[in-house]
């Protein structure tokens, strides 16, 4: 097999004849001696890839450290606009999703197909919840001043609400928005001249992290599809779901560090 040819994919070849589950039909690549060796190599390869991911974020962490060292008060000030309650909730959501991911791998290892699929979709949903919280409760109010009506952060600002939309579902707080990165910063009540820099770091770090969440969710969805269509994962072959899991845990890992660094400064 020296040509990229999807038809030679042993899983794809036999979609209708689903009698034999995909994982049993799997044949390792022609250059491997055993399936185990291939699995081992894939895991090693994936760890190397994870190392590159960590070092990608390393740049952000170094930037964070230098800037916080230079402008400690800008960071304290900026951080005080983040609501630790949402941050904590998001941490819990990601930890739960990490658990469901690990459990789903375990299910596939034990050939519990249904359990595995349920856990996979749970992971996906947790990811979705994470993004929803991030975008609707964190980014949107800070950038535009629009809150969702049931945001617990809102009652405090009730006296400043100056607009509504969608029948009161969204409420606008006067002067709250404009906490954008760099030159787009237009929040008028900042205490520190370098606060835009804090927001730059905040949006870069959480934004790139959110991008990774999205990539991870895509991978999970793809695994789910293959699990449903081909029963692709089972005791002897679960490489892809395992590596997706590793990726997802890495996303969690990064967040474990981002959370205190961004939300718990004072």
């Amino acid at each position, binding site marked *: 097999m020296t040509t990229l040819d999807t038809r030679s994919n042993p899983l794809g*070849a036999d979609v209708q004849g689903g009698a034999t589950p995909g994982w049993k*039909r799997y044949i390792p*690549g*022609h250059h491997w*001696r*055993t399936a*185990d*060796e291939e*699995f*081992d190599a894939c*895991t*090693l390869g994936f760890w190397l890839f*994870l*190392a590159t991911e*960590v*070092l990608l974020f*390393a740049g952000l*962490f*170094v930037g964070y450290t*230098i800037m916080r*060292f*230079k*402008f*400690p*008060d800008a960071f*304290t000030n900026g951080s*005080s606009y983040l*609501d*630790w309650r949402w941050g*904590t909730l998001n941490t*819990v959501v990601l*930890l*739960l999703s*990490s*658990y469901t991911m*690990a*459990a789903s791998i*375990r299910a596939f*290892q034990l050939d519990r197909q249904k359990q595995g699929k349920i856990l996979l979709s749970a992971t996906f949903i947790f990811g979705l919840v994470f993004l929803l919280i991030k975008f609707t409760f964190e980014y949107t109010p800070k950038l535009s001043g629009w809150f969702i009506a049931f945001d617990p952060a809102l009652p*405090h*600002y009730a006296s*400043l609400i100056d607009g509504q939309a969608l029948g009161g579902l969204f409420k606008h707080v006067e002067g709250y928005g*404009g906490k954008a990165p760099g030159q*787009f910063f237009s929040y*008028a*009540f*900042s*205490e520190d*001249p*370098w*606060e*835009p820099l804090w927001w730059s770091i905040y949006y870069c770090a959480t934004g790139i992290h959110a991008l990774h969440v999205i990539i991870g969710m895509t991978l999970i969805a793809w695994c789910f599809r293959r699990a449903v269509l081909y029963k692709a994962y089972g005791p002897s072959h679960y490489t892809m779901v395992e590596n997706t*899991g590793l990726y997802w*845990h*890495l996303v969690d*890992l990064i967040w*474990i560090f981002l959370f*205190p*660094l961004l939300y718990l400064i*004072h």
Partner: protein
Amino acid sequence: MSTPHAASPEVFNELDPHGMGAATKHSHHIVSGMTLISILMILLGFTAVTVGAAQMEKWIEASLHYELPRWVNVIVAMSIATVKATLVLMFFMLLRFSNPINTVVFLFCLLAFALFLFFTMLDLGTRGMINPIKAHQVEAGGIGGIRAGWRADAPIINQAPVVFWRDRKIAAVGIERYNELKNILSHPHEGHGTTPVSSGNMSINRPGITAGLFNAVAPAPHDDHAPHGAAPHGAAADPAHAPAAAPATPAKH
């Protein structure tokens, strides 16, 4: 590759002198469900601890009027995060059970990170910088040209956005309303302890020489060697532009 799957040719494992096959025995470890649950619980517990510690620090500062050193917050938070990360790595990411080479890879990656951070800090952390003493006015020039807003044709303000927007708001709503708004907005969470203090004036003006290193002489850029002192230039302290606009000075609480 349409040939049927064949049993693994065991003969190769015998010829494999580096134990490459032996490593695969680690690969298929199945973690018990109990372990996973316990790890999750521990992780959630640590999350509670780290949030609690941060709240506790705030409480200490607010009620005992004692300002903890800055590193306390960082050290506590980072230690807990490291423990959590280790747990995730070992049990969720199966480093504990898989081929040790994977752990080595990850440790090397952390080593590279550590070197990166250490040497960058070593350089940037030991030299003076001109933090604009006048947080007020941004250094203009090729790197200035900050625009007031998102649009590409928005006017150039040559000012820190913070200052520009503050002044604009004051002009729009008046200083009383501004202070009123600010009072509410800068206490985003009830019970928030101390009021943040601006660092705009805390920067030390050092002459670009590592403080205390080799300073047979620490030449001050604006010392009175010459009759007029050094001419005003660059981002240096410029008395004429020290925060002059009275209403623009942030109201201290």
